[in-house]
Structures are given as C-alpha cells and as structure tokens.
C-alpha cells in the first residue's frame, strides 16, 4: 500500500501498523463488514415479506392455506437455528440442483444418489462448475439470505399475526359497516394500524438478526467473525511478513464496538419510527 512497506522487518511502531492494517488480507476483513451490512439490508425486508405472507396465510379463510401458514410458523420456530443453518442449506442447494437436473438432463442414466455422493449432471450444477469464483460467492450469499429470511420470517410472522389480532375489533366492524369487503378492510384498515403493535416485536427480531450474522460462516460466507479469527490468530514469521502473537482479543474488541454502535443506531431509528407510527392511534403512546 505505502511505499515504505516493502520490507516490514525494518519497520516499527505506527509505520509497521499502518502497513499491517493495509495488507490485501485486511482488505478482505474490511469488505466483510460490507457483506454483513448488505446481508442485513436484503434479509430484513425479505424476512418481513415472508412474515407478512405467513401471518396472512395463518389467518386465511381457506383451510389448507391456514394450515400451511400455521405449520410454517410452528416448525421453523421450533427447530434450533444452528441445525437449520447446518443442514437446511445443503438440503436447499441439493433441492435446487435436483429440480434443474430433472429439467435439463431427463435422460441421465446414472442415479443422483450414489452411496454418500450427490451427483447431478454438469449442466444442472448450481452454479455451473465452470462459473467464476465470484458467481459461487454470490450464490452462497443468496442461499444465506434465503435461509435467514425463512428463519426470521417465521418469527416475524408470529409477531405480525399477533399484531393483526391486536387491532381493535371496533375498527374492523366500522369498516364493515361502511360496506368495505374483507379485502378492503384488510388492506385499508387492518394493515395500516397493525404496525404499531408489531413494532416492539419486530425491533427485537432486528436486534437478534444483527447478532445472528456470525452464523454466516456456517454457510461458507466469509464474514467479519471469520476474518477476525483468521487475522487475530498468532502468526509465525515463516508464513507471513507480519508475525504477531494471539491478537484475537483486539479484533473481537473491534467487532464488539461495531455491533454496539450498530445496535445503538438501530435503537435510535426504531424509536423515531415508533413515534411516527403512534401518532393519532388510540393507544397510550398516541395520546401523548
């Protein structure tokens, strides 16, 4: 990075540190912060959409849809996150490949399951074996987003389901008295009013989601915790120009500060949203 970095052995103090912190390896660490933020930015709305779908399904008039919504909420909430992240992603990936295999290679003579192996034809591979590394990384990232969205979607579905039931019944009856259809009542009266009841639960979920991002490494995405562990581990002079002892504590302190700042910022924003949503509502918050 800097011109004086060519021979780190001769450097000391701040100059050494400035060279150390600008290695290409550290760039990977800095990028991973962006990865985590992007993941949150995409996952949160997706999970909310899953949650909204799940909650609407769970209170549907149509029985099979209602069963689907309720079992989605019950099953995903009941399975430990770590089991979900360890096994579900491999299963999801295999399911995609299996479908593509049936579609692209219907004449394939061999079995897909051969003992322990899962073998699909080359054209059905996701991403293709010949694809660039970044395609694999993007694909891994999106399976991660999907898994997070399914898990957190179930929790937010439960929150929204409760929030929908918390809207005063009088509001819905009035809407009906005005001659609104069920659909109109849902979209014009119920949905705008439920958010204020949902927000405390949703803000909890958001905080948990922020703290759950280290699970990314289980999904093969190199996140900030992976890099902190890798960079902080002690380095012997034979394998690096910047040998050092066990510095994991310092790296994890950086992560601690990052997470604390981020959750604090979220709290401030959520507080504002809450103020906005409670205005004019028939709740204690709305009257003050």
């Amino acid at each position, binding site marked *: 990075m800097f011109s004086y970095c060519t021979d780190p052995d001769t450097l000391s103090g701040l100059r050494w540190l400035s060279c150390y912190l600008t290695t290409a*390896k550290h760039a990977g660490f800095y990028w991973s912060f962006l990865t985590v933020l992007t993941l949150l930015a995409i996952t949160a709305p997706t999970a909310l959409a899953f949650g909204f779908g799940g909650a609407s399904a769970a209170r549907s008039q149509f029985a099979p849809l209602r069963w689907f919504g309720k079992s989605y909420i019950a099953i995903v909430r009941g399975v430990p996150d770590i089991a979900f992240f360890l096994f579900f992603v491999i299963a999801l990936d*295999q399911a995609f490949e299996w479908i593509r295999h049936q579609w692209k290679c219907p004449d394939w003579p061999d079995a897909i399951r*051969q*003992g322990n*192996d899962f073998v699909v034809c080359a054209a059905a591979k996701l991403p293709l074996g010949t694809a660039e590394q970044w395609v694999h990384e993007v694909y891994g990232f999106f399976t991660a987003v999907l898994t997070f969205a399914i898990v957190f979607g179930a929790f937010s579905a439960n929150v929204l389901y409760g929030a929908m039931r918390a809207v005063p019944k009088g509001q819905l009856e009035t809407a009906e008295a005005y001659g609104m259809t069920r659909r109109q009542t849902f979209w014009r009266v119920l949905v705008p009013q439920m958010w204020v009841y949902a927000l405390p639960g949703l803000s909890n979920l958001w905080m948990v989601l922020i703290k759950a991002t280290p699970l990314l490494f289980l999904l093969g995405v190199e996140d900030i915790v992976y890099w902190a*562990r890798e960079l902080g*581990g*002690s380095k*012997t002079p034979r394998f690096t120009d910047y040998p050092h002892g066990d510095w994991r504590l310092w790296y994890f302190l950086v992560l601690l500060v990052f997470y604390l700042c981020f959750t604090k910022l979220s709290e401030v924003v959520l507080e504002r949203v809450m103020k906005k949503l409670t205005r004019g509502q028939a709740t204690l918050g709305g009257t003050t």
Partner: protein
Amino acid sequence: MKKLILATTALAFSAGFALADGHATTVRMGTEGAYPPYNFINDAGEVDGFERELGDELCARAELTCEWVTNEWDSIIPNLVSGNYDVIIAGMSITDERDEVIDFTQNYTQPDPSAYLALSADADVAGGVVAAQTNTIQASFIASSGATLVEFATPEETVTAVKNGEADAVLADKSYLAPIAEADGDVQLLEQEELIGGGVGMGIRESDGELKDKFDAAITSMKEDGSLNALIAKWEVGAQF
C-alpha cells in the same frame, strides 16, 4: 450401448465446451486455509502453502483448471459429497473411517509423526488433558488413549488452549507444530511422538473415479521426477519419498 453413446456424446460436448472456452475443465479445490505449512491464507489474502503449490502443479500436469475455495474443517467432507467442490486438499490423512465416505488418491506426503506441544518438557500426556482439532486422526488417537481429550474447531485454538493452561499439551502433525515451537519461546515440542495416519492424500468423491485417476497419475509423475520431494523439502512437511 445406450450408455456408451450417451457417454460419447457427453464427452464430445464437454470437449466442445473446452475448446470454445480455450481451457480445460474447472476443478474446485477445497481447503481449510488455517493449517500452515500445508495450507494457509497469506498476506495477500490468497490460499498459500505446500498444498497450494502442489495442487497448482498437479492441475497443470493433469491439464485441469483449478479454482481454490476455503471451507471450515468440520463440514469439509459433507460439502465435498454434496458437490460444492471436487477435491479436498487440506492436509487430510488417509484413514479407513474417511475412506468409507470418500475416496483418496495415493498419499503425497509420508506418514508424518504427530508431535506434542506443551509449556514444559514434563507435561503429562498419558493421563493429563490433551487438545486436538475435531475430526482429526489425533483426536481419535487421544480419545482411545488414557488422556482426557478436549476438541477445538481450528488448529489455532488447540495451541491457544495449551498456552493459557486449559490443556497440558496439544497433539497435531509435527510439521504444523514445529514452526510454532520455533517462533514462540514459551512452548516446546516433547520428545515423545506418535506414529499415526497413513500419509496425506487428496479426498475425492467415490463416484468421481476419472478425476481420481488423473490426480493419481499426476502425483506419480511428480514422485518420479523428484519435484514432489523438492516441495516437501521447501515446506518442511516430513520425510521425502
């Protein structure tokens, strides 16, 4: 007959693709990236080490295009069998247990004695607490010995456990522990060593016989012309062939 025709068509197609792309098939090499000198992430953020050099040379000899990926040690076999990469090249010793799940090429290092690293020379490795990485030959060796086993997900953590007194010693490949003992005055290698494992090989899916043959042939050619010995000497990963 039908199979034969299909296989020929498939071959013709892949050959066509290869020509069109201007390079041969891509093989994805899965490694851990946390086990120097075998494999580690260098200052430039890339996979480096004995296996990186060896793998690149083998791919060149087998006329394959290779792509390096890292994966956590714990899930390195499940991800191979489900097809996320095609080869494990991660200092993995050939054992009967693993051989039931995946196939191995011939070994490209001699069986490396496992060594103990401890704070003092009189550490009790027979009845004390010994650290090892999960799912390694060393972990199963200690589990069947008289010592108490503590397992860690990464090699780095096993060494830290010894330094902070959580374990009396750590058992790992000697070539991994030797540079650490050299650089760090607090810890030392014990004289006692254990001869376990049958050398390190590349892990390949059982259904991927063709790829296995290619790499076997490439390893044989490297053994014959002495280039493998040169690499072993350069990275100090045990005895030569």
